[in-house]
């Protein structure tokens, strides 16, 4: 809608997939274009970013790809800092073909090198102080960007009773949710995370499912908006993505699989509720992983039978990659939840 100066804005409009009579999926090619463009435009409007100016970010995922696509079209000078274990060769090449400078930090133990990446980014910012750092985890413009998704939902679905989405930065779920709650105060918000992500109180650890969860706490996650938290392991997420492809010809990434699993369960449970689910990216990046039977075959514990429903927990608790659990969060602050557990 905005400006029409480049076709990338069409990436911001999801396709509708009606997965059940009461379940509406917003399927994005690359959702992160939406916050990336919004943050860049707001920074330009505020004078924090000049046309053609330098932009730097630490990322290993789709946000980096979105920034690189925008930088290519709009002529920004983009530097991305990532970790060797998180950045596959295909994506690195694609980022470089788009003209981004990619700094890859070695992390032989597969830690993700979060602090080293931040240190490198800080060096870049010190060397070139006019560099704009989007900071998707903490920049409130990330959440604001999702007024467009909430608009799409009200235009397409009308009334929304329940919103289901994955959480990484918190931007899409808390942004979309806050705009929808202004008109539908009773909206149920269900967050989808994965085991050993710190977002809802797990101790950090190795995660096989990427693209959701986090090892640091982003300010854009507003725990007090969340009614229910689901932790979906990598295997149910993979299986759900494969099933979306098989049953609906929807070729989406594993985080979309995780979100669809939870949303479809809620839709069965509450047939009178209208549910919107956010599906953030397509399957192309995962051709050589979850869409490759040989890659899957060597995973310990695969294949699994997808659970029909989650295990309902009574406290925050991490499980294995084949498990799907949930906890009533009841719009609490994270600290309130964890203190209550410690007291109990």
């Amino acid at each position, binding site marked *: 809608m905005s400006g029409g100066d480049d076709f990338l804005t069409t990436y911001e409009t999801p396709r509708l997939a009606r997965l059940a009579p009461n379940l509406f999926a917003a399927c994005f090619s690359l959702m992160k274009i939406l916050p990336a463009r919004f943050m860049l435009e707001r920074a330009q409007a505020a004078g924090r970013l000049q046309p053609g100016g330098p932009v730097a970010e630490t990322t290993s995922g789709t946000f980096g790809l979105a920034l690189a696509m925008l930088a290519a079209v709009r002529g920004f000078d983009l530097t991305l800092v990532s970790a060797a274990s998180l950045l596959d060769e295909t994506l690195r090449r694609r980022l470089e073909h788009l003209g981004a400078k990619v700094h890859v930090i070695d992390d032989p133990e597969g830690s993700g090198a979060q602090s080293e990446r931040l240190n490198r980014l800080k060096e870049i910012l010190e060397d070139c102080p006019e560099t704009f750092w989007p900071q998707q985890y903490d920049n409130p413009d990330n959440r*604001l960007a999702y007024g467009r998704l909430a608009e799409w939902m009200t235009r397409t679905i009308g009334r929304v009773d329940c919103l289901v989405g994955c959480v990484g930065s918190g931007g899409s779920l808390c942004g979309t949710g806050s*705009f929808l709650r202004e008109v539908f105060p009773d909206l149920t918000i269900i967050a989808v995370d994965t085991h050993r992500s710190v977002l809802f109180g797990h101790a950090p650890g190795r995660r096989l499912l990427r693209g959701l969860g986090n090892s640091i706490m982003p300010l854009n996650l507003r725990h007090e908006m969340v009614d229910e938290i689901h932790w979906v392991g990598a295997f149910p997420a993979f299986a759900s993505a494969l099933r979306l492809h098989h049953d609906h010809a929807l070729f989406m990434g594993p985080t979309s699989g995780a979100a669809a699993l939870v949303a479809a369960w809620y839709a069965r449970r509450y047939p009178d509720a209208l549910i919107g689910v956010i599906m953030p990216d397509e399957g192309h990046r995962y051709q050589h992983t979850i869409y490759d039977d040989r890659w899957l075959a060597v995973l310990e514990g695969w294949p699994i039978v997808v659970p029909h429903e989650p295990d309902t927990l009574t406290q925050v608790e991490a499980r294995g990659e084949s498990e799907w659990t949930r906890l009533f969060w009841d719009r609490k602050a994270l600290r309130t939840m964890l203190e209550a557990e410690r007291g109990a």
Partner: protein
Amino acid sequence: MVQNESTARYDQPKSGKTLNGGRKEGLLQVGVGRAIAHHGELLQGVFEGEDGRLHRGLVTLPLAARKSTVTFWPNGEGAIRCRPANRKKAARAAALTFNHLGYSKVGGDLTLESDIPVGHGYGSSTADVIAAIRAAAAAAGVILRRSTVCKLAVEAEEASDAIAYGDQVVLFAHREGLILEHFGGEYPPLLVVGFRIGRARPIATLRLPRARYDGQEIEQFRVLRGLTSHAVRQQDPRLIGRVATASARISQHHLAKPRFEAAVKLAEEHGACGIQVAHSGTLLGVLFDADERGVAARAAVLAETLGQAGFLGIMTFTVNVDGTLLQ
């Protein structure tokens, strides 16, 4: 909707001279134009236009029961005189219309008859202006496009509203006279219990400072715009009620109406769809689904409760209803 521009053949002047406006040859007739009032807005804020820029815009709630009727009596060359004399914007609107149609130096008398209360947000001034434009067009024997009527109205009085579009729901840039979005349908069927709140004294709308919306509000308006589109498409009064209530709440941050929350509570207690306001006036309206069983009775109870609670100007009206309400 009341939009019947009637024309009456004007008797030839005794002198036999034609009413020649100069550039344009041709007779002007007596022309009558009408325009309805509104009851504030269902939605008002800032919205992205096709140009990617933000525009102030609104969705009007029409009030067909009140109207302005303007008659133009041509009288040679010279100025357009107005009765009552203080309605200068209406005279200006008529002159702009003649100019637009290629007439110049048109003289005549413009009489305004209106039962729209002034200064509370019923759009009395705009109704006069649009009726005057229609009267002038009728005098020239033409019917104008609605978009032209709106542009002339904005030119005559700086800001206008979308009543020229009658029963069609549009998102209207009221300071530019442009349509930002045509929602492609009529208003969902509504029964409205309207009343006035707070200030007894009328407001001069154009003297109010313009609301400065923050980023959160600007993005929220997108969502309300999307929901309006769905509500019109599905003819869903419940959803249009949600839009109106949310817009009214944002308005509270800019031109707060006293006792607003009390009114919202009353609306909820009576099973209403929502509450709308005149964003630059003193009006509130409780919106009911006009097709719902028992709605007339519930609205009557609410109207009485509002009266007992000291609210003024209580008026019940319908929007896009066939005529009878389900009892």
